[in-house]
């Protein structure tokens, strides 16, 4: 037992020496605290930033907007830069949590990010004051060409009884309602109770045909030929297609969700200047290219897209759909607490509904 205690004490000293020391000499220009999605950056770009600017990056990751929000709101850690999605940015603006950006410090963001993405951002950031787009994509139907004969053009194929038990739907409330609302021709940001009731009825009618409500299993199930049709994010579509060449991705003609994850700076950021340097660095074409290749989600950085060597990817209609072709792409906005409750109640009704 004495040996155990001695061993324990040894470990204590090792741990405390290893974790205790910081290196301030290497980084003369201070720090920046970054809070980003997991696996959402090429780690090499962080090292490059530290080397070039002498600013130390303290990097942290989260898994959903909803787990990020309470931590940031409570002010537990002094994050400077965060990368939330569209509707969450709006919620943070509403709650006065974000700092206005100084565009003079962001020359790369102004020059390289396509104008259409700033325009789309107005759905949640009306005057483009708070956010710089980082990644974006659409939601569409991934289908297996060996199982689906007719061309897929519309959401309505998800209600086709031929494909009973081989349809995969998203298991998250807004993504699920988006499909039904778009199919009915309504806005996916609808808060009208009658429209939402109608969408609910449609989703209940679809329920017997659905094989499963899932999130990231769509990827693996489609690769493994376990389903014919699945609702999926475009960022995953390129990867799944590479693994299973029989898969095709389509944006339905009724329109869909165009999501954007953007960099924002928090109001209480202690390192605002460093934060702007970090965001601007991420908008440099060569850096954005590295991140695109690592994440494989579409980049809003037009200059970086020009640098993509693989022509198939540069001109891929999945990664870079011609936005002018669609006039019915929408971006989620924050609907307020009352509407959130209504959505969740209707969702519960769908989930608990059994036809037998």
């Amino acid at each position: 037992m004495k040996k155990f205690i001695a061993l324990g004490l040894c470990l204590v000293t090792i741990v405390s020496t290893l974790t205790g020391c910081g290196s301030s000499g290497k980084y003369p220009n201070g720090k920046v605290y970054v809070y980003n999605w997991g696996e959402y950056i090429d780690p090499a770009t962080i090292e490059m930033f530290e080397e070039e600017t002498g600013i130390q990056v303290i990097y942290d990751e989260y898994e959903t907007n909803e787990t990020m929000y309470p931590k940031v709101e409570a002010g537990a850690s002094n994050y400077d830069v965060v990368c939330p999605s569209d509707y969450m940015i709006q919620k943070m603006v509403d709650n006065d949590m974000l700092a206005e950006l100084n565009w003079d410090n962001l020359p790369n963001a102004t020059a390289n990010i396509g104008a259409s993405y700033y325009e789309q951002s107005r759905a949640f950031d009306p005057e483009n004051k708070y956010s710089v787009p980082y990644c974006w994509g659409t939601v569409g139907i991934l289908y297996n060409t060996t199982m689906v004969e007719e061309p897929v053009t519309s959401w309505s194929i998800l209600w086709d009884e031929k494909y009973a038990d081989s349809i995969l739907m998203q298991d998250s409330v807004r993504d699920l309602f988006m499909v039904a609302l778009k199919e009915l021709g309504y806005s996916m940001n609808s808060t009208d109770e009658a429209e939402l009731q109608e969408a609910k009825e449609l989703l209940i009618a679809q329920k017997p045909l659905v094989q499963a409500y899932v999130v990231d299993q769509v990827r693996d199930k489609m690769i493994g030929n376990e389903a014919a049709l699945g609702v999926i994010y475009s960022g995953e579509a390129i990867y799944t297609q590479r693994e299973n060449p029989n898969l095709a991705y389509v944006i339905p003609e009724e329109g869909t969700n165009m999501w954007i994850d953007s960099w924002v700076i928090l109001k209480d950021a202690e390192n605002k200047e460093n934060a702007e340097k970090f965001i601007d660095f991420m908008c440099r074409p060569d850096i954005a290219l590295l991140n695109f290749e690592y994440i494989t989600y579409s980049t809003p950085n037009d200059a970086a897209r020009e640098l993509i060597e693989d022509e198939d990817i540069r001109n891929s209609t999945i990664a870079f759909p011609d936005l002018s072709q669609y006039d019915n792409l929408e971006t989620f906005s924050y609907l307020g607490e009352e509407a959130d409750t209504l959505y969740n109640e209707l969702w519960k009704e769908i989930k608990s509904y059994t036809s037998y």
Partner: protein
Amino acid sequence: MRNFARRIYIALIIIFLYAPIGTLMVLSFNASKSRAKWGGFTFKWYAELFQNDAILQALWNTLAIALLSSLIATLIGTVACIALQNMKKRNRAIVLGITNIPMLNAEIVTGISLMLLFIVLGIQFGFFTILLAHITFNIPYVILSVMPRMKQLNPSTYEAALDLGASPLQAFFKVTFPDLLPGILSGFLMAFTMSLDDFIITHFTKGPGIDTLSTKIYTEVKKGIKPEMYALSTLIFVTVLILLLLVNKTPKEKKN
């Protein structure tokens, strides 16, 4: 016939317990990233695992926090048990009740309240706050496993040691402590495992730039868990298995 049924029953239990781990181990050798496709046998993920500083750092943090927090919690918990033993019955019941509450409390409540407490106290979030949080939720488990052992003790042996000239400290270490040891060890092990798999409390009490394995794995959910994690889990499982086999082997040798 009864034997046959028994074997099937055991086989079923083993399948339920180990099929998930088996799947994970097989997938750690799969060259394809997708679980749905077998891309050939490879050691690639193991090689990449040892080059991935973020995962190795998270592993190190996890082990350091688990070991430190369970050691400290064991110390505090054992001392608390000694004090509890010498209390009046009513006071003991009250204090025991209070120490048991955190165990029944939902983890998310513990996590958020610890986070708020640290904010109020102005403590910088990081390794230290996770450690404090883990010590906090580990203490009740140690008390829970040391206390029954404490009650079984015969107080006369301790008094006899005093009568025979031992100092109170000597009497404790030579007489009481050896009797408590099994309880202390099981409390330590329980605390260690609780700390090892905790996610929610760690999530709320961790600072920027520090991850344990559970929080690291969870952040990968959006983009799909990387096969390096399968490789790491396989290694951990194999290590634990070997350790268990070794531990189970030693007593037999002693008997001889």
